[in-house]
């Protein structure tokens, strides 16, 4: 199954999801597509004419453009997500108002999508980490195994 991870660029979550036999949906995949696309001057800073349309699905024109730009990257991930693992208030996701609003919107959309969702906190101690990994493994076991990649 395709599992959305938040923070969307997390090494730990991406690794654990892959380790337990599922496919992580991380922002790096979308960035990679932009970087490999010919004709973009400075990926992922600039966008194609198609991208604002994806962003406008989630946020109105008067919403800061940063939110819509970020949502255009998140859209393919959110639409594909069959389940999600979310870390609450990660320090590394702290940023400008565009980042903050996008993070809020992503978390809202995940809840609104009514897919299996696991919410956790980043571990600080070994005991916390044991519980963190155990919860993720149990959550991923409860999902169907990943389909064979085409």
């Amino acid at each position, binding site marked *: 199954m395709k599992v959305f991870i938040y923070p969307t*660029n997390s*090494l730990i979550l991406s*690794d654990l999801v892959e380790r337990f036999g599922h496919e992580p949906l991380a922002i790096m*995949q979308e960035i990679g597509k*932009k*970087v490999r696309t010919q004709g973009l001057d400075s*990926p992922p800073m600039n966008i194609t004419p198609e991208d604002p349309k994806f962003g406008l699905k989630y946020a109105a024109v008067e919403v800061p453009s940063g939110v819509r730009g970020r949502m255009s990257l998140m859209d393919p991930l959110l639409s594909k997500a069959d389940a999600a693992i979310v870390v609450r208030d990660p320090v590394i996701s702290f940023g400008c108002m565009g980042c903050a609003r996008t993070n809020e919107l992503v978390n809202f959309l995940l809840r609104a999508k009514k897919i299996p969702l696991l919410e956790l906190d980043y571990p600080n101690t070994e005991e916390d980490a*044991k*519980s963190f*990994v155990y919860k993720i493994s149990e959550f991923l076991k409860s999902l169907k195994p990943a389909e064979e990649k085409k």
Partner: protein
Amino acid sequence: METITKMVVINSSKLLPSDVAMKLYESRADVMIKETCFGVMVSGEREVVDLLLSNVRKLDPYGIFIKERGFAPGEPYRCRATRRGGARPGFHNLETEDKILPHIASALKSLDRGEIPGQKKQKKKLDIDKFKEIIKGTEVQQ
């Protein structure tokens, strides 16, 4: 065929990035390999890279962590050589998570041993009536 880049972050006491790089070179796979301070970056066809890294993970299953990377090694948009130095974007994320990796490795070991972690006691919030009593108790009588 899709070309991807994957980052191999090594947090192991028995494995160095050079060991992993040598193992990758030995495989003679059609991939680009870059050894870094945190591990190795591998760029190539998705099927080739995935198969190669699943074998590499066996060198130290608890000390090797893998994630995909959007940019290829040496990409001018990210490489410090063309950006006048400084931390590359994404470094701070890696640094933050790198600190937790020893805990995650230990947690994975205990998971494989079949250990079930105990429930952590959650601190209860202070009851409002008790709080009012405390306030009354500390009020100075005039």
